[in-house]
């Protein structure tokens, strides 16, 4: 367990906690969000930031100073979601060069990516963009030197040892390995996000 939780001021209207894992970050963020005292509570991979209304500065300062520990009981993990991905080719223009750099055949890469169980660690950057762990820690895929001005919705990329899925079309700096046809962000749906933090997930070759 981490040392005492200490809120750090990262802007005049934002406090931030540093925590051990994304699981801790998500658990703390949910708890803080449910208190209803913040304008926004956002989890990063190992941070939780709280933006507040300046009119509530004293109340929020006292509240956050009193946070002693993170309750990890949380929700049950739920069933595994399967995300079909078309690997390589036009859908994954960087797969060949990634495989070459790593000394893997594309088949071996796809086998590895589809066999392991993955975990959605965080949603961030743009609506529905998912940061997914599950690749070996030894993976060190660097971001593109120059981001692409536009990658299509459903593009699947990897960066370091994370898989990321672009829920929407837009600029993107992650090398792309494939694409899913699944709709991951639907603003009109009762549940707009298909993937949520803590979701267990497997990729399958489509």
């Amino acid at each position, binding site marked *: 367990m981490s040392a005492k939780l200490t809120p750090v001021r*990262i802007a*005049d209207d934002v406090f*931030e906690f540093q925590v051990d894992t994304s699981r801790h970050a998500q658990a703390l963020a949910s708890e803080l969000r449910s208190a209803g005292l913040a304008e*926004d509570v956002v989890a990063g991979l190992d941070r939780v930031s709280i933006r507040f209304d*300046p009119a509530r*500065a004293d109340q929020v300062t006292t509240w956050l100073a009193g946070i002693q520990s993170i309750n990890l009981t949380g929700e049950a993990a739920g069933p595994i979601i399967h995300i079909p991905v078309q690997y390589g080719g036009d859908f994954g223009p960087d797969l060949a060069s990634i495989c070459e750099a790593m000394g893997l055949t594309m088949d071996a890469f796809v086998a590895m990516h589809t066999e392991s169980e993955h975990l959605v660690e965080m949603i*961030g950057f743009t*609506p529905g963009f998912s940061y997914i762990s599950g690749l070996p820690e030894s993976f060190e895929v660097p971001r593109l030197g120059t981001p692409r001005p536009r990658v299509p919705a459903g593009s699947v990329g990897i960066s370091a040892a994370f898989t990321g899925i672009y829920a929407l079309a837009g600029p993107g700096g992650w090398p792309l390995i494939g694409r899913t046809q699944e709709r991951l962000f639907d603003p009109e749906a009762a549940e707009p996000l298909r993937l949520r933090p803590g979701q267990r997930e497997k990729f399958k070759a489509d």
Partner: protein
Amino acid sequence: MLRILKAGLQSTLQGAPRLGHRHLGIPYAGPADPLSMALANRLVGNTHNATCVEVTFGGFEAEVEADCAVAVTGAAGRLSVSGREKSAHETWHLRTGDTIKIDPPQVGARTYLSIRAGFKARAQFCSTSTYLPASLGGYEGRALMPDDVLVPARESVMSESLKTPDALRPIFTHAFALRACVSAETDLLAPEARAAVFSETFTAGRQATRMGLSLEGHILSVASDGKMKSAPVFPGIVQCPPSGTPIVLLCDAQTTGGYPRIASIARCDRHLLGQVRPGDQITLLHRAPDAALIDFTEKQALLDRWLR
């Protein structure tokens, strides 16, 4: 009711920021200059965040299709109604057939057009504000185009005529002094870079969007291995990528980022970011966070005498 004749570089409908959804990756959106939008709404008797048109670099024309009261604030080039010159910061009573024209401003970047009762717009995630990358809110989630028809939420004539008090009219120049605080990774800056952030004058880069603007002219040396874990960011946060050219985040900013957060523009001055043009000068004035909050409270109290 207004029919768009010319939409300029980028005109969108903006209302309240989309607070409380950043954990889904959904940015705030809302006006880039919320103070100017609040002043525009005040002149037609609306609440601060009633939906307005945000016009970027002018070039906007619209035809009036039903009598209405409107107001224009923010960056203002020449303003006219059916060829007659008009002043910003006053209620305009328009008649069917009139034509509104907002010419490109010489200083400042964004102009706000309010209408009595606010424009009707699609609300998504509790806000009518347009967020273009995800096509959320506003007018079909997109920028306005010629022939779009903007409808007020209710009856939009009024009898009263209002003027913004002279002392409360923001004056824009090509130089911005913005109060700012240190942020989470300020300590990763080399000592001379840290001093430079809060003393040198930067130049706004060519990319000045609703997402962010770059601060050019001084490369900052930042001790980052490029492996920082993605962390939350907000409008006002200043990130420093390995290139050493910092980026200030604006209203449409992404929700998380992997670059060191080296400063944060204080809440009291964030509204000014929406008026920065490429090439403008920017200086950050260091403030302790609590002092910056006092500045905010005092500025708000001053404005509230008119806005409330």
